[in-house]
């Protein structure tokens, strides 16, 4: 065989192998599109979605787009629709996705938004109450610093300026910090989303403000970065932020960070798939409204998992963060409440998300 024919043959065989290796079965398939890749928090959402798919007997197909690029994410949703999936859940990192998503809704494709939303999309949204969670975080920081008499510099970091949910969190934090007029608030600064860049940015912010009394992040990598920074500098500032990833919980356990707020990653994955399956069964679009995934509050001393879930210790919370199967088993109490009308019983207007 000549060299060129050999190359051709290898190419075609490889492509055919790719084709034949593809997954295909008779189960209903739903698509799930994320705005980040290799992110522990997003993986927890995907684990929740997979648990729902297992419980409800559907196949889950996941597409992950890095960088929060709305155009790339919309293309993935459209590709899912073209491939014949029965419905798609997607985070919506930009308003420019709204028109395309509404076209899909109008064409009969069930759509659910989760974690990040565009308010003009005519579909259900599953996520936290973003401004309110910011208020909770701000209140906890102020209380720990001494209440209304608190003094000092507080630095706020936002890993993705422009994401409405993150801007809302910042708004909530700033509102609560105003309760202590002696606090000097700096930021929000762009602290980037990749773990390496995130740490570097916080390190630079601390170098520029060595007297900072508290540093607050709005994204998943922040608490871990702030914990490392605090540990390296003698735990001189109060650190707080978001999400119950293993790294964040480790920072709290080590005493290098004070608080992290969870936004119920499992619920943000499970509920969209449950809503899609319901829409597929009833042949109706998903209801336009807000489904609050709940806010979880975790310090070294207390763990509130929200959603009426059983009390657990910090160590148990740490174990759950690392074990998707154990998490799915723990949430059974909550998933049972979704039976019958329970799924749509707590729907609120979309505007409630930012109240």
């Amino acid at each position, binding site marked *: 065989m000549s060299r060129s024919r050999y190359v051709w043959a290898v190419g075609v065989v490889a492509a055919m192998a790719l084709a034949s290796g*593809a997954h295909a079965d008779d189960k209903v*398939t739903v*698509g799930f599109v994320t705005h980040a890749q290799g992110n522990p928090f997003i993986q927890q959402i995907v684990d929740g979605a997979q648990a729902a798919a297992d419980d409800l007997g559907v196949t889950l197909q996941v597409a992950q787009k890095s960088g929060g690029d709305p155009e790339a994410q919309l293309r993935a949703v459209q*590709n899912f629709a*073209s*491939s014949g999936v029965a419905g798609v859940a997607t985070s919506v990192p930009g308003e420019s*996705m709204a028109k395309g998503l509404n076209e899909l809704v109008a064409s009969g494709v069930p759509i659910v938004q989760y974690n990040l939303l565009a308010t003009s999309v005519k579909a259900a949204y599953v996520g936290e109450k973003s401004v309110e969670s910011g208020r909770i975080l701000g209140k906890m920081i102020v209380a720990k610093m001494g209440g209304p008499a608190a003094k000092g510099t507080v630095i706020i970091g936002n890993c993705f300026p*422009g994401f409405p949910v993150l*801007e809302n969190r910042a708004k909530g934090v700033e509102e609560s910090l105003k309760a202590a007029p002696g606090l000097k608030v700096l930021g929000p600064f762009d602290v980037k989303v990749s773990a390496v860049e995130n740490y570097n940015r916080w390190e630079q912010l601390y170098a520029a403000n060595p007297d900072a009394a508290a540093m607050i992040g709005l994204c998943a990598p922040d608490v871990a970065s702030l914990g490392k920074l605090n540990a390296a500098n003698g735990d001189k500032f109060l650190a707080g932020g978001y999400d119950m990833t293993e790294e964040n919980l480790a920072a709290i356990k080590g005493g290098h960070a004070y608080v992290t707020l969870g936004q119920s990653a499992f619920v943000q994955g499970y509920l969209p798939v449950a809503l899609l399956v319901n829409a597929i069964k009833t042949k109706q679009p998903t209801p336009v409204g807000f489904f609050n995934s709940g806010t979880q509050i975790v310090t070294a001393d207390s763990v509130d998992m929200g959603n009426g879930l059983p009390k657990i210790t910090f160590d148990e919370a740490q174990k759950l963060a690392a074990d998707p199967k154990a998490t799915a088993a723990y949430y059974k109490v909550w998933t049972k409440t979704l039976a019958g009308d329970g799924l749509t019983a707590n729907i609120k207007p979309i505007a409630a998300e930012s109240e």
Partner: protein
Amino acid sequence: MTALPERRRTRRLPEELGVIVALLVMMTVIGVARPRFLNPLNLLTILGHTTFLGMLAVGMVFLLAIREIDLSVGWIFNFSAVFTALLMVAGVPPWVCAVAGVGFGALLGLVNGALAVVLRLPAIIVTLGTFSMFQGLSLVVNNGRAVVPADQGSSFFTAISAKLFGVLPVPAAVFLVLAVVMHLVLHRSRFGYRVQAVGSNPEAAELAGISNAAVRLQTLVLMGAICGLSGAMYVGFRGAIDPNEGSDFVLVVVAAVIIGGTPLSGGSGTVIGAVIGTLIIQIISSGLIFFGIDATWSTFVTGAVIVLAVSLDQAVKYQRARRARRQAKH
């Protein structure tokens, strides 16, 4: 007497044959396994997906042809779109805004070009800086939020969102027309010949009376104007521009141009190849979903299929070169 016509026939085969073959092989493989993929509506949707990045790839061909790379294309796209959308929010007629957006993109390209020429720096270094400058200025003017023109009832939005013959999105049609025009500009116009001459041998071009500085400046302005066109059309098509849109464009654009067969060494370029390169990237993305490939594997598979496509292209080129050598001996 018989060798000459044979050689001519060989030369008529398009340079892009390799990538065309790679594209067809990929479509066939996906289509055989998933017939729904070959649904004409799906293929037109994929063509629609290539539009905004594809336009940038067309401009990038000219830059690679003069041995330059513009890293700021994604943010020129974004800033032009933000500029266009903000003018619309301010009440300026949308068609005027769109034209202004193209002009604004050209202006940003002029900034890149002027800096590169005056400072005598490669565009890749200048645009490393303007990448962040344009991003930062865009964030300043949009306040870190999406810009959504309130009144989208104008004929601009209707026209850009329409489908020709009920199937072909207008931006995709504009993209194809742009590609044909730019192909002719590169291969049939004085400017195109100058671009290839400067990229091929800058010193010889200078001695032949072609100003390298002028060609570099014009090419960067052209790139900016194309980014502006893409950005203005994006606002019309999507009805909004987000603060981070365009952040990841540059790698995909350069990859598409290189997959299409434009060499990094300059001196030549293929607009048609860039269009096909963009299509290949979109088809990989679509194929991953049609095959249901797990998200954790998709990044690896994307890279592997790109390597496979480039290998096919190289195999075809090798075969053609060998045949040409054989014919030359005879």
